[in-house]
């Protein structure tokens, strides 16, 4: 039987347009893309980089096939911009702890921002900031969230590859402990009594912190079934005070639901 001719795949005819935008953040996540030297040329080959201020001057208008958004929404201007970006984007990916959980700057969500502004700036009247720093998904529909502070470049490549070959991107939603044990690191909490958020944090970083004798900071945010109550009790047993537990949970992804709720309870217990 003779096979009929295949029609040309659309991606062969036209490279997908990639855009990278940023809001309140440190740029570290988008640099992960540039940091992927070994395959960067392949990426440039496979997609048309239409908008990526960190990488090139050319700025092509939308619509974009894939848009990576770094950073949290923290000014009124951001809200308008992200809505416009959403309209211009077929597939919008929030990258990093800022874009997916508000970032470390979300610490201000627990405080009075106007007071900070008065203290810090000589001309507070020039500052137009929101009271909160929150994730992209608080304002627009997000098609995929890539967690981490910073994101893992291999995960980013995996997501880009998935989109290029027609696969719904998927990254693990289980605990950091799975990666930690796969790489053979003995549990730092069990063997050294070091407080660690690994058992409630999503994998993706390849458990780098426990591998250098540090507890997990929770950069990747809560995993799929975070039991912060049980972990909190264990942290107490390790001798941590409520204030210390609050600080542990309120870190790079501290404003993510499960971590925020847990830290709020411990803050209440401090009083």
């Amino acid at each position, binding site marked *: 039987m003779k096979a009929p001719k295949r029609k040309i795949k659309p991606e062969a005819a036209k490279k997908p347009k990639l855009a990278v935008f940023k809001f309140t953040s440190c740029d570290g996540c988008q640099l992960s893309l540039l940091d992927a030297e070994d*395959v960067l040329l*392949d*990426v440039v*080959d*496979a997609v048309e980089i239409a908008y990526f201020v960190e990488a090139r001057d050319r700025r092509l208008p939308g619509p974009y096939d894939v848009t990576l958004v770094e950073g949290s929404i923290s000014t009124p201007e951001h809200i308008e911009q992200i809505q416009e970006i959403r309209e211009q984007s077929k597939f919008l990916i929030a990258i990093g702890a800022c874009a997916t959980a508000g970032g470390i700057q979300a610490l201000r969500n627990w405080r009075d921002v106007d007071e900070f502004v008065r203290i810090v700036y000589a001309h507070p009247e020039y500052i137009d900031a929101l009271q909160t720093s929150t994730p992209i998904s608080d304002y627009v529909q997000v098609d995929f969230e890539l967690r981490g502070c910073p994101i893992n470049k291999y995960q980013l*490549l*995996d997501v*880009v*590859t998935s989109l*290029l*070959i027609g696969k719904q991107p998927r990254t*693990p*939603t*289980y*605990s950091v*402990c*799975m990666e930690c*044990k*796969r*790489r*053979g*690191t*003995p*549990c*730092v*909490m*069990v*063997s*050294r*009594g070091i407080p*660690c958020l*690994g*058992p*409630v944090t999503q994998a993706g970083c390849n458990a780098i912190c426990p591998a250098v*004798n540090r507890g997990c900071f929770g950069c990747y945010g809560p*995993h*799929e*079934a975070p*039991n912060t*109550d*049980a*972990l909190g*009790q*264990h942290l107490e*047993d390790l001798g941590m005070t409520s204030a210390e537990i609050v600080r542990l949970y309120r870190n790079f992804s501290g404003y993510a639901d499960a971590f925020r709720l847990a830290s709020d309870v411990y803050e209440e217990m401090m009083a």
Partner: protein
Amino acid sequence: MPDLTPTIGAFASVEKAALQSILDALKGAGYTLIGPTLGEGAIIYDEIQGIDDLPRGWRDHQEPAAYRLQRREDDAYFGFVVGPHSWKKYLFPPRQSLMKVQRKDGTFQVTDEPDPPPRYAFIGVRGCELQAIHIQDKVFLGGPYQDAHYKARRQQSFVLAVNCTEPGGTCFCASMGSGPRAGAGFDLALTELDDIFIVEVGSEVGAMMMRESGWRPAGAFELQQAREALAAAEKNMGRHLDTSDLPNLLYQNLENARWDDVARRCLSCANCTMVCPTCFCNDVLEVSDLSGKNVERVRVWDSCFSIEFSHVHGGNIRPHTRARYRQWLTHKFASWIDQFGVIGCVGCGRCITWCPAGIDVTAEVAAIRGEV
């Protein structure tokens, strides 16, 4: 001239330092030595060169959610029990390439020529761990489909077992019938006494490795000492688990309120399954380059504690921790027997020690039995 090779089944006595000559013989025979050694705040399994790499003079204090290295008063070579690693990391590696797939000319080609498998000599395999290896043999080699990767590594591995004379705080091998004495399947088995090792010869290869050790037949007094040490160890277990009527007990308690109770404590972090020497569940990742033309299929350790583990179209079979913990415990202590003819637990205590929440399987089974 006397024959330097002991017979299989013989008990020999060697000076402690002579262990080095056995290790040298293994190296000479092309084995890579894997054994216990100090690392990352624990006694882990890693490549060793000789007896100086062993954690001589150390013990591991273990209790639920706690593990601490402590100096011993003596300089015993094997004065500790089992740590965070198990031998499965060598026989069933946490990440292993299964095959490479290349899309070409409208079809695809698979290359599954594995790298020549390493030839491992496992030094210091405890009774519970030997039983764990037998259990994974049944999983990967006992069914209608054999796992070629496991088989290649397993077939040429050498096992130097060590009988346990000082069980740890979370040990219950005596309950599970896997220790403290190593059962069959070793090449050599040591029992450490004050000044000597008693070596039981389990195989021809094991006997060969003894040739340069200056061994002599173990004396009756020495054997008596070893027997007494093992008998004492059996009575000294940190934990106990009643195995009677196990499958039925769990199958009849699938709705026991204890599952809700343990779900409140369980972190669903999967540490128990990762450190368990028999847990074998795995996932296969499809790692593609940007073009989708070059793909590697990679097998990684998976866990029934991840939600996606049970994903089917339309949802996940076990979305709640209660169901996932029940699956794990029921598998270990009940359905494993239906599947492989043995209990899936060897009583090594790793899941108790390394559970950050200190959940104790022996206590959970006892609670379901109504003993708490």
